[in-house]
């Protein structure tokens, strides 16, 4: 068996994983003490992080539904993490039975777990790959089996790009993926930012440092920097906004119902020309 390039030398569950930390924020138990410990430390600085993640998750759900309503039946979710609930395939396949979903993550535990969850679902698959090597994702057999690149795809980059440092050229990676997608494809993206966090940046920095400590630095980008990921896409209304403001589901949606932490970061959907 070929040892994939992504596979770490060993799996050390005493090292926190951002995927499992995310699960912890979402009330899940798919995590180990080291993950919870790191999450708690970050929450000492930013106690509302769970709400931020929840809002992020809610956006993802709305965006997938939007994509399904737009007629998209193929979903490529890169940085999918640990499927907790309201997963893309659940939402997408409910809206469009038979919709194809491929999850991509570079965390082998997340991949193994996804495999267990997706067992028996012929229209969904999981791939161990890294956003930093887009060509490997595109060339992957499972991706090619499930996704027809000649038809529009919803590319989900939800809460992942803020884990890719500039040195690894996240803009280049996104552009490579964009170039591979058929016209009419959608880019669904969320990204952490100091903008919108109900905290002075100095304090939010503390939470950022926790990620640095666990060797998974969190790259906070400005709105403009995040907007650049949409180069080559037309923004879908209402553009790049804080997650709850992106197409709230009920007409009676009231921002005051939302936790202030839900407004941290940016979310948006673009459509490729």
């Amino acid at each position, binding site marked *: 068996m070929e040892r994939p390039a992504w*596979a770490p030398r060993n799996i050390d569950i005493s090292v926190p994983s951002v995927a499992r930390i995310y699960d912890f924020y979402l*009330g899940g138990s798919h995590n180990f003490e080291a993950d919870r410990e790191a999450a708690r430390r970050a929450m000492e600085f930013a106690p509302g992080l769970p709400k931020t993640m929840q809002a992020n998750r*809610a956006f993802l759900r709305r965006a997938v539904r939007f994509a399904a309503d737009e007629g998209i039946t193929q979903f490529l979710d890169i940085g999918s993490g640990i499927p907790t609930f309201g997963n893309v395939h659940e939402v997408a396949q409910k809206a469009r039975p038979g919709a194809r979903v491929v999850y991509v993550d570079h965390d082998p535990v997340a991949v193994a*777990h996804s495999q267990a969850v997706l067992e028996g679902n012929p229209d969904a698959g999981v791939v161990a790959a890294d956003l930093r090597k887009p060509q490997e994702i595109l060339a992957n057999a499972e991706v090619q089996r499930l996704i027809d690149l000649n038809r529009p795809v919803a590319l989900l980059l939800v809460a992942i790009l803020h884990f890719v440092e500039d040195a690894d050229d996240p803009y280049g990676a996104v552009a490579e993926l964009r170039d591979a997608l058929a016209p009419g494809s959608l880019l669904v993206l969320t990204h952490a930012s100091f903008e919108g966090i109900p905290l002075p940046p100095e304090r939010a920095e503390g939470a950022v440092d926790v990620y640095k400590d666990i060797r998974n630095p969190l790259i906070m980008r400005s709105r403009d920097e995040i907007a650049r990921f949409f180069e080559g896409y037309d923004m879908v209304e209402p553009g790049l906004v804080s997650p709850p403001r992106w197409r709230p589901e009920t007409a009676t949606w009231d921002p005051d119902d939302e936790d202030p932490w839900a407004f941290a970061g940016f979310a948006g959907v673009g459509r490729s020309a």
Partner: protein
Amino acid sequence: MIAEPDGPEDRLRRFATIWSRAVFPVTSTSATRPEFEEQLLPLARRLSEALAARTVDTDAGRAVGAALVDAHCTDPEALTRSLDCVDAYLVLYCGGDGDREDLRSRSSRLQHAMAAGFAHALRERTLAEQEAIARAALEAQGLVAQALHATEARFRAVFEGAAIGIGIADLDGNVLQVNGALLRMFGITDQTMRGRRVQEWTHAEDAPQTWTLYDELVRGEREHYHLEKAFSRPDGTVLWTNLTVSLLRDADGEPQYQLALMEDTTERRLLNLRLRYEATHDALTGLPNRTLFFERLEKALSAGEGQRFGLCYLDLDGFKTINDSLGHAAGDRLLVEVADRLQSCATAPGEMVARLGGDEFVALTTGPDTESEVDDLAARIMNALLAPVRIDGRELTVRGSIGIVEGPAGERGPAEVLRSADITMYRAKSAGGNRFELADPEADARAITRHGLTTQLPVALERGEFFIEYQPLVHLGDGSVRGAEALVRWLHPQHGVLGPDRFIPLAEHTGLIVPLGRWVLEQSVRQARAWRERYGQDVAGDPLRINVNLSPCQLTHPGLVQDTVDILERAGVAPDALCLEVTESALIGADDDLLKPLRRLAEMGVDIALDDFGTGYSNLANLRRLPVSVLKLDRSFTQSMQQFPADPVDLKIVEGIVSLAHGLNLAVTVEGVETGAQAEQLRILGCDTAQGWYYARPGPPERLHELALVDATG
């Protein structure tokens, strides 16, 4: 369903709204608050119904508690808030008009059941998720381990299967692991290899830097090095390798191991040595050849102060005769014997013997005392040649001439030294041979060596050092001048005028004969035109003809016909004004390919003369085949006619040849006519034309003019 204001349904909904508002902030759901409220509504209805049931349905309470967990209310605070909410509002909104006290007690029991149901469901969910993630981690670990194992297995296969030797040792030099290829190269077993230390593998042929590089590497000052290294095998043979040693560092960059990669180059090395040997040794005698000798000589001549050299240049006397009379095989055997004897004369360090080619050998001695040593060396060589050589039952006496050059290193180059030795050897040879002579700079300058002339030939042609003399050809019948033979001369800056016998063979040997011959032809043809312009035709009405010699080498040159045609056309001279002289020996055994150019020239009208006729195996039958129109009788036939009376046999032979020639429609020219009696005799015998001192020696073209005038007036 539209609820009647303040009807039971409306009240139920209001209860659910309050409940959802209370709990939503502590849930993890990705649903919105209104959606979440929709999720709570059936739970509220369940509680409401349980409240109204005849007997309290605690199962309903438990189910509602569990349902909260399913709705992602996994935070215990969600339970607290739910219980607070149920406690405060369930009876109020859903109690109807029942007994307050009873309702409160029922609500209380439902809350207990909810708490139990929540706790149970949360515990189940937590355990399930923990198990799922643990299993995923295990699975991932398994995959990675499997992949790692596969990688290791592959690396092991590469290691074991590699054709190059691979060995790993620690920094103290203890060998930790080696692969099969390395064991096979060393010719030892794994057991023997174990416990060995790298430092044991010193070898006499190690390059000086070998172990310095090693020390630098194990100290971490060098990442790798590459060299050729020899190892001793247990069986005593030597293993030569192309060795690369690299330093392996651990994850923190600390030097940890040394890795050796080696390629067995023994065979290649042997082959190289053999090729080198073959390139530097004479195949016949096994002696060093010219190449190796020049290398050594160069080295000796560039040696430091106080170092001298002595060179003996030996050429066997009369070797050609032996070769010609006994054949090449015998000649070769003689050379081998001579080589063996010479070899035994130069056995001291700094001495060597080489064969330069043919029957030329050199012996070299080097060191500070060559002044006395070189004479001894020459004497030893002369002595070694004394005993006759037995070949095919014959005792052959071998003699040689030796030229000796001796001097300090650093003054002269190899070519100059060799030239001096060559000249000196010729001096010894011309003094009778079987002796040695010591080089003398003045004699060197005077001496004409084949070597010197050969190297000067091309420059001489460029510088115009050649010129042509013409010897008239006279008609024996009427004594008129019919033409002349062109004879090339070399006005050598040091040696004066040299005849063709001195340099034509050298020019033949180097191929310079082709441009030189073309030049002679050009000059001669131009001269023929000049004559024609000045004097018109001879008495017989024919133009003055020019005879030009063709060497065997020119004969085979592919440009012969075209060059001749071009030269004639350029000069505006008719082909019948030209006669090309070819020696009989050049045409012995000539096939049609060789004759073709001559035929073409003859067809054009160029006369072809068979020169020196009667000296070779004059194959008379062959004459019919040759495109020849003139026979030039060799001077040996005419020499006897200088006496009177002439040898009657010679007369008969000449008469016979003339009659044969005329019978074949060939003209006959005689050479070497020196007396009037000779001329008269030849005329009587029927020869057509003659040349010789009796008429004129070869001279400048003007001389011919004088003769022609004399002839015309006489």
